[in-house]
């Protein structure tokens, strides 16, 4: 039980930044928070940035000539610049703030539904996704397919929790208008091979959408290197606040594609009978944007960058490797997803004999250990592996080997309890 794995961050120092990690639950048990794939905790730096914003600078953005409006606008747009550089976007105007990753993905699906050629999705075209998508990257495409008559197709999964690319060329064809897939699965932990899919999509002229919700918080993300057309992620999983998501899109696409939500901020000029629209990103940001949330996300990005995304990835890699080793010792435990730490993120799903995940989660909780149980908004994955649900432990930059040990001990107790 080595607690000094190579590559670990100084979690003692890091945990000091996260107030919630010091609370106890159930009569004094220390909190072991292993539900980071659902949402991460927030460092004081992020909370302070938002408080400071509200206490000193709040006003509605744009359109204002007074000091507060200028300051709020500078802070909001400054956050856009930070996020753009976090994902290495060629231009800050390619970063759209949404309310969460789900809205980002719906935004793309809707743009393509209302687009002119060559982007338009209609009943002669096809949409390709995968069987390991989060519901937020399934349902918007089901809507689009239902509403346009387009055909929805998907990659299946291999028994060891990876994308089955064996029929790549039959799935992505001349009819394919868009391919949308998750970079890192929120259930299996699988890190998907981007290059093969992007190459094929580009061959047939399909747009590529990447759901990076479980990647952006955990590893360096470079939208240019990915080669995608759109990349979506969400603030609350990456030390940022709730209420904000991001859609990055290639500039020329954002120029050509139609707006989605209509309202204040997204227009150029309005008459009662028709309107013209502002250039991107504003075209896609109707109404008062999540101003304080952008400020918070900017602070989160600063925080993560301050530590270094490479180092965070290495830390999580070490923790995941250790967790997979330790979990292998628990009898009747079956990992759902890749069992090796290669090409995978810090999310580990499993079943424990016949014990229903609800019961596993409940008994772990009583010991202070927070995991998620259920289908994790990716029910097709459970169907694929013939299980009703999984128990999922997911790690982040503040997770420690001791927490892995606590989990393993907790699972032993669960087995005893229902044994």
């Amino acid at each position, binding site marked *: 039980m080595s607690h000094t794995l190579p590559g670990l961050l100084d979690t003692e120092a890091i945990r000091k930044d996260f107030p919630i990690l010091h609370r106890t639950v*159930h009569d004094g048990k220390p909190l072991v928070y292993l539900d980071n794939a659902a949402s991460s905790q927030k460092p004081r730096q992020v909370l302070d940035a938002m408080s400071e914003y509200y206490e000193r600078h709040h006003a509605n953005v744009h359109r204002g000539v007074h000091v507060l409006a200028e300051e709020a606008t500078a802070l909001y747009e400054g956050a856009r610049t930070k996020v753009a550089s976090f994902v290495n976007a060629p231009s800050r105007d390619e970063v759209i703030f949404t309310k969460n990753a789900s809205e980002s993905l719906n935004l793309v699906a809707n743009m393509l539904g209302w687009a002119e050629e060559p982007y338009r999705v209609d009943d002669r075209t096809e949409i390709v996704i995968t069987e390991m998508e989060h519901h937020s990257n399934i349902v918007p495409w089901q809507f689009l397919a239902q509403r346009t008559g387009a055909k929805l197709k998907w990659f299946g999964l291999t028994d060891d929790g990876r994308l089955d690319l064996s029929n790549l060329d039959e799935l992505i064809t001349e009819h394919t208008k868009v391919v949308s897939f998750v970079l890192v699965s929120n259930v299996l932990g699988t890190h998907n091979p981007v290059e093969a899919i992007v190459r094929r999509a580009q061959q047939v002229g399909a747009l590529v959408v990447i759901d990076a919700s479980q990647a952006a918080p955990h590893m360096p993300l470079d939208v240019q290197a990915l080669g995608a057309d759109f990349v979506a992620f969400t603030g609350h999983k990456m030390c940022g606040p709730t209420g904000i998501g991001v859609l990055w899109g290639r500039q020329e696409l954002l120029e050509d594609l139609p707006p989605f939500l209509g309202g204040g901020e997204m227009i150029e000029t309005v008459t009662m009978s028709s309107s013209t629209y502002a250039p991107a990103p504003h075209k896609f940001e109707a109404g008062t944007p999540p101003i304080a949330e952008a400020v918070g996300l900017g602070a989160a990005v600063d925080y993560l960058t301050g530590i270094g995304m490479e180092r965070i990835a290495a830390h999580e890699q070490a923790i995941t490797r250790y967790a997979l080793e330790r979990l292998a010792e628990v009898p009747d435990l079956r990992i759902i997803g890749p069992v090796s730490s290669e090409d995978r993120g810090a999310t580990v799903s499993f079943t424990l004999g016949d014990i229903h995940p609800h*019961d596993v989660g*409940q*008994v772990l909780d009583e*010991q202070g250990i927070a995991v998620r149980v*259920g289908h994790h908004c990716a029910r097709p994955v459970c169907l694929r592996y013939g299980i009703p649900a999984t128990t999922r432990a997911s790690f982040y930059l503040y997770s420690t080997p001791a927490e892995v040990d606590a989990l393993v001990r907790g699972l032993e*107790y669960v087995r005893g*309890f*229902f044994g």
Partner: protein
Amino acid sequence: MRLEAMESMYQDVILDHYKNPHGRGLRDGDAEVHHVNPTCGDEITLRVRYDGETVADVSYEGQGCSISQASASVLNELLVGKDLAEALAVQDTFLRLMQSKGQITPDDAMEEVLEDAVAFAGVSKYPARVKCALLSWMAWKDATAQALGDGLVNERTTS
């Protein structure tokens, strides 16, 4: 390790029903329903058979946690053989207990009505699990309404 609250959720009665469910399996019935708990994916298929206004059988199949499984078993044990008005009274009492957020400690009168089902009192403190406990009971009421008609069910409902 101090597990009071939880031990009060996982009463022995519940664990017994979970491990040895009563009346599990699908048999002939007058109506069948399929209910899902969207928050966790628990599912139940449930059939009711009536003999006049007497609950002749409640048969079911499904997957779910100990709480939802045990609760279906208790339901079978409690309701089969009762007449509709009595069965509805039991259902209603169980519903009230489960929605009490841990505020109701079952008294003797309640224990008389609920029998084994009072063991679920502890579950009511856990909002996420209340739905598990209620899954089969909601399905039963729905199936009964289908078998006998909404009108009759409303008439026989006391509260």
